[in-house]
């Protein structure tokens, strides 16, 4: 899979313009995101902070093309998502977008190795198994390949998820509260691994979190409040 499919290296990898998301709750229309604008450059790491219920996960879903906005324009790898149906968006993601979830989202009947293999098999990579093994070794689970999720601790499960996110050579990784289900020490180690892998692979990272320690490690931090994104200063994040 090519890492340079968008022509201009300085063109944003992700670009949102006047993004609005409304949902209907009973008889009321709730506006979660209001004409929001965002541009993410290749190789950049970006944290989106916000209170619970601020709409962080909704925004992540939109940016990753898992959901469609009510109005506004959105482009990923230079391609307008609005012109694509759900299948088209899925094809765009294939092999180029990785995900890390708060609840890990490992399949319980699959071993660690098989969980990591899953996105590779979908894109028919030739040396899939060797790659999956190598990524699991990189996250320190080389000896736990055949373990099922229930035989792994929470931190270990999230490391499997990290290996799965990076194994395809993704250009863009989305992380949704990656430390949310972990104790602080384990969370710290996961963050270390995440940024290490991100740095080595030169991946663009978009993560949503309410954890300032995690946000501080990113190049840029934004706060989601009242449906809009506001740039945060270093001080604000550190506070």
């Amino acid at each position, binding site marked *: 899979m090519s890492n340079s499919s968008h022509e201009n290296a300085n063109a944003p990898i992700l670009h949102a313009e006047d993004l609005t998301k409304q949902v209907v709750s009973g008889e009321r229309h709730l506006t979660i995101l209001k004409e929001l604008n965002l541009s993410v450059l290749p190789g950049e790491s970006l944290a989106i902070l916000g209170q619970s219920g601020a709409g962080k996960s909704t925004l992540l*879903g939109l940016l990753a093309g898992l959901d469609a906005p009510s109005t506004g324009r959105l482009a990923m790898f230079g391609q307008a998502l609005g012109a694509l149906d759900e299948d088209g968006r899925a094809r765009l993601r294939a092999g180029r977008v990785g995900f890390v979830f708060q609840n890990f*989202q490992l399949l319980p009947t699959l071993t660690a190795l098989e969980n990591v293999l899953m996105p590779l098999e979908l894109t028919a990579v030739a040396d899939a198994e060797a790659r999956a093994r190598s990524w699991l070794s990189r996250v320190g689970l080389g000896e736990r390949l055949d373990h099922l999720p229930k035989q792994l601790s929470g931190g270990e499960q999230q490391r499997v998820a990290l290996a799965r996110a990076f194994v395809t050579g993704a250009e863009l990784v989305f992380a949704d509260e990656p430390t949310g289900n972990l104790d602080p020490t384990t969370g710290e180690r996961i963050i270390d691994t995440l940024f290490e892998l991100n740095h080595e692979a030169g991946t663009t990272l978009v993560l949503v979190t309410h954890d300032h320690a995690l946000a501080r490690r990113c190049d840029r931090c934004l706060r989601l409040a009242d449906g809009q994104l506001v740039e945060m200063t270093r001080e604000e994040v550190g506070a």
Partner: protein
Amino acid sequence: MSEPMRLLRLSWRGLKRDLRAGDVRALFVALALAVAASTMIGFFLDRLDRGLTRQAGQLLGGDVVLEQSRPFETELRETLESAGLTLSDQVDMVSMVSRGDAFQSVSLKAVDDVYPHYGVSRISRGGDVEEVADGPPRGEVWVAPRLAMLLDVETGDSLRVGGGEFRVGAVIEREADPSAGFGSFNPRLMMHVDDLPTTGLVQEGSRIEYELLAAGSAQAVEDVAPLLARLRTEGVEVQDVREDRPRLGSALARADRYLSLAGLAAVLLAGVAVAMATRRYVERHLDTAALLRCFGASQRELVWIFALQLLWLALTASLVGAVLGLAGQAALLALLGAVMPIELPPPGILPLGMGIFTALAVLAGFAGPTLLRLRRVSALKVLRRELDPLPASAWWVVVVAAGVFGGLLWLYSGDIVLALGLLFGGLLALLALWGVGNALLALLARLCARLPREAKTHDSLWRALRLGGQQLSRRRAASLGQLLAFATALFAMGMIALVRGDLLDTWRAQLPEDTPNHFAINIQPAERDAFEAALTGAAEARSALYPMVRGRITAIEGQPPREMVPEESRGDNALRRELNLTWSAELPTGNRLVAGEWFEPSASTAEEGWMGAVAADPVAPISMERELAERLGLALGDTLTFTVGSETLQGRVASLRDLDWDSFRPNFYVIFPPGVLEQFGHSYITAFHLDDGQQDLVRGLIRDFPAVTLLDVESILSRVREVLDQVTRAVELVLVFVLLAGVSVLYAALVASMPVRAHEAGLLRVFGAGDRLLSRIQGAEFALLGLASGLLAASLAELAAAGIYTTWLDLSPRWHPALWVGLPLGGILLVGGIGQLLSRGLRRRAPAASLGLLGET
């Protein structure tokens, strides 16, 4: 790698990994059982059918038997031979043989070198009984044991037949083609056809029947079908194995239907199991589907991946099922060895294809609509777990499954009316079950709520029952689904067990220990009382003595019978030969009136009795056997003319009767009321049972009543018993399969309900429930479910049994108290047992794991 190959590999790997999950194993087991049951029964019935055709050929002496009163023309022979049929000539006649001063009339059969086409004869050349595949050589005659006894001859003695003297070469224990000799009451004598001229018996005017026996492939018989049809209209009697199956009879026909019914029950059960397992499969795969969407799989890819995965599953399950089915049919054949001819056709490929087709159809029908839900999974579900697509509507699932099952019913039974009847009956029953099940659950919940709240001990039984009942009513919709699945399973298991029991009882009742094994015919009126007296006390079980008059049907509605009957019945035996007519004031035992009225002397002529009643109307009322009436196209009110000797008399069909032809009692096609036939010459017939040690009585009867003919049918009787025994064992083997299929439903349904139960168990644990209490609560819930399912199943089975018995199996319906005890008890034990076994693991789990706090989904 090409796209299809990639999807194939992906789905195959997915399946291998999935086998770790209980629902996939349940799906696998259910499909394998469906295939095993349908292939086993398919293979078996296919071979049984071919075997019976072969056996029919053996009984007839060939695949096609032609009979006429003059020799057959060379041209006809050449036509038959060019179609690939092998021909054998046979000549039958009644003749006298003598030894010294003793004379005896015999049923003479002259055979050629080709005889017999099928099977072997059992003969004794003075020593042990041996099996031979030939007839008598030239210059030799073989005699029946009765003839040897009557003429006091042994092998090596000589007999005079017509103008020739022949050596007795052997005594015949059993002819290779027994049915040919059964209709004749004279003892058998066999000789070579080349010796006939020596006897001088074949002369102008002699009553001789020439038979041409043809044997060959089914195709060859099929090829000459038009010729046979033409010969029939020309007055040649044609017997064809495909139409003239022996009356081994109704027992095997019933077994055949029972096996088909059992096979379909197994398929239905497997279908329900598939439906239950698929629900859980889909729920478990919603996350997989969402993740795959996230990683870039298109909707089309998703559908292909899961469909192919299930296709793999179906194919491997089919393979396992087919192997099981092959083994099963081999076991069936081993059990039925003696019924089948020695040379068995190998298992055909068709049943295997049908088996795999069944698996795919069951999967598509019972799992399809549920599976389509996976297609609609949104990738956003990975972020928002509540975003599950709506489950397929229960009614939609039922309608598709019913459609597919109806199609299978049609395919298997070949009877669309039956298929539609069963299908709509089943859907109505499901609707009724739905309502009754709901009411039953509500009742159980209310009853459980009234149980004493204050218990002496923490985990008392009452407390467990009350909590178990509460759990059931809280999850009303899920409980109702399980209740219906369990009730269907128990119903099918109960039905198959029930029908088996009644079938076996009927068979046993049909041939009790004291079934008549001897017939006495030609008892003269003057001997009647003496004969009856000789039997009284000696033979415990015997039928009445029926008078018998030989008469021929010579007109129907005043016209020649050949013009009045349907074309295919013109060569019917009943028109060509004399029938045995009898009279009786009462309906004979074993006869059942199916139309019209039995004879009633009219009130005005009561004092004069029957004679008066009949004298008032020159056309006597008669009662006919239903099948004969149908063959001849006769209805109530039709008038028949009979010729008895040189006299004629008329009868009007007043009633139709069904007979039990397998009963070994004298049976009559036509019965007159008393007062009509007495004027003609008649003799009596009776049947009675003698034990092995009563041969002296037989000798005494032969000595004291030399004119009476005694027929020993013990060998035929024991053969029929043997067949019934073996069929019984086959039926039991099939029952085991159905029970296994039933258990697979229970397993699948319980596996499907485990996640919810795990969650509940986790919560109860958190709130302080101990292992013992948890076990009791779950046990109580399973037991209550089992009890309710059993009660539902029993009521449904009772209704269905009545329907099936009267319409399909030809048995009379009855009340089954055992159902009302067995099914609820079976439900409690099976659902309770399997449920407890499956939930043992749940109870061992830490509550955090059960509640998903460890990140497990």
